[in-house]
């Protein structure tokens, strides 16, 4: 049996296409074996036929499939990020994407607060655009890094990965029911602290940001200004949020467990806290030490006052960052494992 001239040309083209797809060093050998198989198949299908035509060969080749598919069967499976590294890749990706998106959200809110003249819709549009590109870039960069690790560590053990696969009992999560149980002592302390806060802020609201001064016990107690008008404008909001927090904790005590209502309430309260902190930072100075210049001296107060306000700004910035991460984590947890 032999091939027609056209069939012969088709066979050569097919085998050449398969060869191009093979990276194996023995690709000539593989192609020779595929050719041998095709001839065996033709011989069986076309018994007694003197010359096999192009159409007949085409039928056989179509059964075998595209050259890329045939070649792929001879190649070992390659992964960009293989099953060994994939769980770690997913974990790192989730954390980093959350942090990047959280930071972008924060910068958008700050931008809106600091530059109220900006067009809100333009800022939002830019924000959503940057969310998309930042998420894509983060995932892309991480994929490249992990692909590099995968390539470098192929066929070798990675100690750190082995450690991750070991069981650490204390890392096991609580059962959903236990996780949502309310610690009564903690909630009670939060309520007491909330009431103390409520009393304190109601007091300074009444005194216009003044606190009693007892440095000289023999003298009459007098009220001295401590909080600036910049801070005092936010006291009604602080009172409102503290009152809502006490109400939430009381609801928790009555219910005995976290429900969908209290969880989303807490998330909303945290977001409100973040916004309030941002407004407070933009309203610096919050504290004045003017009155104390009689005791500490003018120079000391001039040095101390900016220091105290900067310290407050740093503490509030850290508070914002922590709250953003915490809120994102809580939202993710609630979406994955919703409360009843």
């Amino acid at each position: 049996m032999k091939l027609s001239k056209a069939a012969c040309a088709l066979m050569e083209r097919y085998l050449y296409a398969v060869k191009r797809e093979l990276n194996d060093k023995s690709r000539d050998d593989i192609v020779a074996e595929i050719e041998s198989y095709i001839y065996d198949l033709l011989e069986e299908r076309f018994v007694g036929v003197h010359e096999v035509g192009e159409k007949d060969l085409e039928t056989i080749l179509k059964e075998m499939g595209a050259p890329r598919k045939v070649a792929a069967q001879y190649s070992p499976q390659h992964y960009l990020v293989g099953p060994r590294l994939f769980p770690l890749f997913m974990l790192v990706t989730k954390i980093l994407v959350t942090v990047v998106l959280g930071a972008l959200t924060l910068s958008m809110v700050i931008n809106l607060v600091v530059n109220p003249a900006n067009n809100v819709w333009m800022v939002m549009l830019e924000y959503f655009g940057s969310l998309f590109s930042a998420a894509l870039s983060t995932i892309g960069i991480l994929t490249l890094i992990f692909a590099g690790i995968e390539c470098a560590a192929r066929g070798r053990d990675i100690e750190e990965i082995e450690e991750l696969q070991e069981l650490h009992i204390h890392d096991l999560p609580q059962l959903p029911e236990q996780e949502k149980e309310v610690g009564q002592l903690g909630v009670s302390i939060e309520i007491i602290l909330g009431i103390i806060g409520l009393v304190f802020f109601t007091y300074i609201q009444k005194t216009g940001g003044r606190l009693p001064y007892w440095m000289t016990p023999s003298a009459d107690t007098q009220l001295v200004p401590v909080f600036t008008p910049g801070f005092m404008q936010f006291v009604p909001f602080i009172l409102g949020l503290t009152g809502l927090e006490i109400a939430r904790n009381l609801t928790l005590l009555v219910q005995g467990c976290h429900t969908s209502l209290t969880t989303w309430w807490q998330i909303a309260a945290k977001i409100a806290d973040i916004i309030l902190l941002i407004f407070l930072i933009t309203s610096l100075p919050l504290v004045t030490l003017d009155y104390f210049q009689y005791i500490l001296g003018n120079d000391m107060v001039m040095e101390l006052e900016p220091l105290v306000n900067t310290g407050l700004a740093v503490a509030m910035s850290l508070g914002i960052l922590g709250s953003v991460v915490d809120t994102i984590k809580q939202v993710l947890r609630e979406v994955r494992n919703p409360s009843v």
Partner: protein
Amino acid sequence: MMNAKQNSELEKLEQEMRRGVIVLAVMSRLMHEQYGYSLMKDLNDKGFEIGQDTLYPLLRRLEEQQLLDSQWRVEDPRPRRYYQLNGNGRAVYRALIQSWQVQNEIIRRLLDEIE
């Protein structure tokens, strides 16, 4: 009566089950020299269906694992590559048979218990 989805799932499970014994089936036919196509026909004739896309890469893999020896023969109408188990391959084949028999016995007992 199974629906189309169940049939498709069954097919996948059957393929998975067969995948585990393909090596044993192929090795069982290679105590004597065979070329790829004749080996495929041999297995198919005995009811063990296997395609070129599975068999040829498997033969190459077994050879890389030094369980098979192969050589091209040119005395046939055209060149063909012949495969045969080598000493190492025979030892592994015998061990695999033992393992298969143990597994078979365990499965038989499990299935008997259900009945």
